[in-house]
């Protein structure tokens, strides 16, 4: 199934902005609107939201789930014929690995669908660097009591995304 289209307007990186993705719909679709105000264009975002839905419920995902299930069955058959404990533990391992792959592929597809090219990536990295400088300059802004749990989560997400990028570069 093809979901590859280039979205020049799409500027939000869903998979990496963990916390932001969780509140994206609140920031974009809730909150107060004053009808004599104008709203900035959200063209890219609309496409992105629709596309994420297509990807999550894709045939590709179904096939991967089916694959996980089929392996599961085979291993259970084997275990009933031979050494049950040994194979039971093996089938658990296979099942988990397969499902992880399925989940990972969803993430990869979203990233693809977002149409993140090299330029976007670089821009995002610049953003992050900029935000870090800001944090150092004005720690009070991000460390309010209200943001404690959120910023904790952001920090861990960020560091993990950064390390994965480093390993890619290496």
């Amino acid at each position: 199934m093809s979901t590859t289209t280039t979205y020049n307007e799409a500027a939000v990186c869903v998979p990496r902005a963990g916390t932001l993705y969780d509140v994206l719909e609140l920031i974009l679709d809730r909150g107060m609107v004053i009808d004599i105000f104008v709203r900035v264009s959200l063209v890219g975002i609309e496409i992105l939201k629709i596309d994420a839905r297509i990807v999550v419920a894709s045939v590709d995902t179904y096939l991967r789930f089916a694959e996980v299930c089929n392996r599961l069955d085979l291993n259970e058959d084997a275990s009933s014929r031979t050494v049950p404990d040994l194979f039971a533990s093996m089938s658990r391992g296979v099942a988990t690995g397969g499902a992880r792959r399925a989940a990972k592929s969803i993430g990869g597809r979203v990233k693809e669908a977002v149409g993140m090219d090299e330029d976007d990536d670089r821009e995002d990295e610049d953003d992050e660097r900029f935000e870090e400088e800001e944090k150092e300059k004005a720690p009070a802004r991000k460390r309010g009591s209200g943001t404690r749990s959120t910023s904790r989560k952001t920090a861990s997400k960020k560091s993990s995304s950064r390390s994965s990028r480093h390993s890619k570069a290496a």
Partner: protein
Amino acid sequence: MASPPLYVYAVVNAGLALPPGLRGVGRPPVPVRLLPAGELAAVVSDVPPDLRARRRDLTGHQELLLALCAAAPVLPMRFGMVADGAGTVRRALDAAAPAHLATLERLDRRTEMNLKAMPAQDGVAALVRDDPAVRRLAADVRRRPSYEGNVRLGSAIAEGLARRAAQAADGVAQELAALADERVQGAEVPGCVLNTSYLLPRAQAERCRELVDRRAAELRDRVELRLTGPLPCYSFVPVEGSRVAAGAAPRPAVVRS
């Protein structure tokens, strides 16, 4: 002389002293200021050139509102609201002042917590064990392997995982509702089986998080629970902040995007 357009972040009580150094959208993030109008004030900034819904802009909007919320009750605006000048902002606030003041009072010392629930991706084995229909499909596919059969099986698994997750999440949602003053069902989010926001006294936020942490661990093989907050009360402000005033204020001609 026409005043320049303004990005509007929030409506607050006029008495609020803005913490110093607050910044908003744009790169570099632009400084924000208060625009008083009677008993209310709008938190505004200049509109950065080439404003779009970029990650950094969304983050700027969100971070500013979080900082404001820590200090005082806030009516958060939706991302991207731009007024064509200071006069327009003042007119909008004046026209809906009683409603805004009442909402600010209602939200005082309160916060929004958002709970999202997604199917646990590792639950395939448990689902196959417990769901006769899925087991039957799996047996069919094994007897007569086919592309269509696999798609049917995978689709049934995806549905089954979502169903189990929704059931598990429902109990947690009920428990949170008992702690909350109000709750609002959110829009459907791709991949989520539940998206609900709760309005809670600030003092309850930590308890809410502990509860969800506990349930997330217990229900790990069925559902992935994600609690976000404390948040600006996006879901508990009137959507059309000046609808009350429609007709009361002269409407300048604006181009809607």
